[in-house]
């Protein structure tokens, strides 16, 4: 939702009761549901009844844009008063910050205030002398509700929320705190599930979702030591599957490369086989893709040059390249293909070479070829 308002909107806004809008929207956000809510922000023309700001159909929630703006104005002031200490301390901070973040996920102070509150509640359980089962239930419920809130926003059809670094950071914090309380990670329950429910969905809702895939790497870092060989293979397959379905998404391919590169550090034989399998499957796919996907060829040239695949597969790579180039009519496609092989040839690992960059090389090698890229059209 854009932050700028036109004059007609401002006129319409003045007819909305801010507190009423806040009550209805915050209550909707707080209501429990099986599974994540699916929130959309809708034009006020879809709300014929004055004083109605939410439409609900099961888990699908439509929030009036005008209602949300006024609810934000109300919540912002209330939160300010709470932080300044000018109102009694029993303000429903989660409700206030929930509405604020629904309006604008980059409202940092709201996200931080939530963390402060949660941290205080979590700490009170740690130091509680009662301890035991009841506390665990309450804590689990606390985490569950907060994941429900942040994951609802991250998987929504709200364009800014799904990619919000503030929200993804909030999730990272939540995962870290929960992990330190629980003390152990279960790869399937904690990592794979988060991918299926949150990362893959957010990655689809907002293509090339940089921060979603940063979170993906964070989750892998947290849980990879708890993963069995089979877990890792299943996971790789799930990621590859996602990439196939979103083949123009560089973030997916970049993450798959990250996984293959990670396997390099594992001394078992599984590593080269994983790369070989994935690489040859992607090569097969690339034969029929029209137009040629720059992201797919980024992946192919990177893996080809990395030393992760055998000479036989390199031959295949060059062969497929020739085949696809011969059929390519669009100059843009041709440029991507030529660039892929040029890049591979310039940067491929020679025997024993470390692929780490920063070797301090400087020079204009490749300048001319670079200038021929993307200059057509």
């Amino acid at each position, binding site marked *: 939702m854009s932050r700028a308002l036109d004059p007609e909107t401002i006129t319409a806004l003045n007819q909305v009761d801010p507190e009423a809008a806040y009550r209805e929207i915050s209550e909707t956000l707080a209501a429990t549901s099986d599974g994540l809510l699916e929130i959309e922000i809708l034009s006020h023309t879809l709300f014929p009844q004055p004083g109605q700001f939410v439409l609900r159909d099961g888990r699908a929630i439509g929030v009036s844009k005008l209602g949300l703006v006024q609810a934000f104005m109300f919540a*912002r002031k209330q939160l300010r008063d709470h932080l300044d200490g000018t109102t009694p301390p029993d303000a429903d901070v989660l409700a206030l910050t929930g509405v604020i973040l629904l309006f604008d996920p980059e409202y940092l102070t709201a996200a931080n205030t939530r963390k402060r509150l949660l941290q205080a509640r979590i700490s009170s359980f740690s130091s509680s002398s009662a301890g035991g089962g009841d506390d665990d239930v309450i804590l689990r419920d606390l985490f569950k509700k907060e994941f429900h809130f942040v994951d609802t926003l991250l998987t929504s059809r709200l364009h800014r929320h799904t990619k919000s670094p503030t929200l993804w950071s909030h999730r990272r914090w939540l995962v870290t705190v929960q992990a330190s309380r629980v003390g152990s990670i279960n790869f399937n329950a904690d990592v794979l599930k988060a991918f299926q429910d949150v990362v893959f969905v957010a990655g689809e809702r907002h293509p090339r979702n940089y921060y979603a*895939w940063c979170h993906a790497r964070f989750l892998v870092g947290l849980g990879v030591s708890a993963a069995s060989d089979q877990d890792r293979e299943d996971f790789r397959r799930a990621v590859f599957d996602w990439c196939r379905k979103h083949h123009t998404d560089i973030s997916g391919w970049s993450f798959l490369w990250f996984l293959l590169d990670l396997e390099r550090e594992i001394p078992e034989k599984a590593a080269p086989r994983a790369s070989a399998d994935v690489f040859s499957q992607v090569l097969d796919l690339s034969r029929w893709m029209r137009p040629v996907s720059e992201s797919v060829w980024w992946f192919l040239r990177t893996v080809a*040059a990395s030393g992760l695949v055998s000479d036989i597969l390199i031959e295949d790579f060059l062969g497929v390249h020739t085949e696809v180039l011969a059929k390519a009519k669009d100059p843009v496609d041709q440029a991507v293909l030529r660039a892929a092989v040029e890049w591979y040839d310039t940067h491929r690992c020679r025997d024993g070479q470390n692929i780490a960059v920063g070797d301090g090389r400087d020079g204009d090698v490749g300048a001319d070829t670079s200038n021929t890229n993307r*200059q057509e059209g």
Partner: protein
Amino acid sequence: MAQKFEQLPEELQLATSAHVKYIQSLDTRKDEYGYWLTEHLRLNGLYWGLTALHLLGHPDALPRNETIDFVLSCQHDSGGFGAAPGHDAHMLSTVSAVQILATVDALDELDTRGKGRLQVGKFIANLQNSETGTFAGDEWGEEDTRFLYGAFNALSLLGLLHLIDVDKAVDHIAACANFDGGYGVSPGAESHAGQIFTCVAALTIAGRQDLINKERLGRWLSERQVAGGGLNGRPEKKEDVCYSWWVLSSLEMIGKTHWIDRDRLAAFILRCQDTENGGISDRPGDMVDVWHTVFGIAGLSLLKYPGLEAVDEVYCMPKAVTARVLGH
């Protein structure tokens, strides 16, 4: 290489006075909604607007005293700055605060009226991860090379780089270098033009460009130019004016701006203007905002568009300012 700006059609000239008026209008509290809806970005927005005005040659278009007053009103006892009064302190708004004060030549007010230069430096330095060398944005721990760059930017302007472990931070950036030539938010992250800017600029401030594989990086950056002449931030993304800054300044820092077609980039940026009401948008026809306005103008400055003040490609501030502060 001569830029052919004078040969561009009328509608592709820089609408300087419209842009100045647009930025000035952001400072007025015309309606309460507009003010409050963006309050949590105010200090960053002020840095973007002020920098654009300076580059446009209108450094006095915003009132200096009120600017300083506002900046100082955002400061916490910790020395850090929030985006607006009462908003939580964060690296990004703290860096904006330092950049704004440097630009209006008021860094000394940090000592006379603020919590002291050193306190700002300490706030920033405390955010360094002593193990990995990178920086968090605030106490909640999000780590991102943007914050590392911010720390280098602000601390060098304050003359306080010695408060942090520069070598460790440099090692961290080196670890963020990817096989494809780019850099990401942390080691192993996806290459991204914005993150590349932060890493290259930080290495430049530290005098460690020797760690950059300029050929491979230049190649990655040059592939960001699309058919329309604009630049994107990653493969298969749409062109966006803000990448005219992140990509172009990175190329400038490694001496490879000639690896893209600069004429077509300039024409693209100029097409993104709202020449009537002022401001620049991400791509032609979209709504303008001050973020795209400053980066579009900064890009044109790097491309030597006539009449613009020179921009410092490392700091995204007027060169005259960084020269004054850093004693170049």
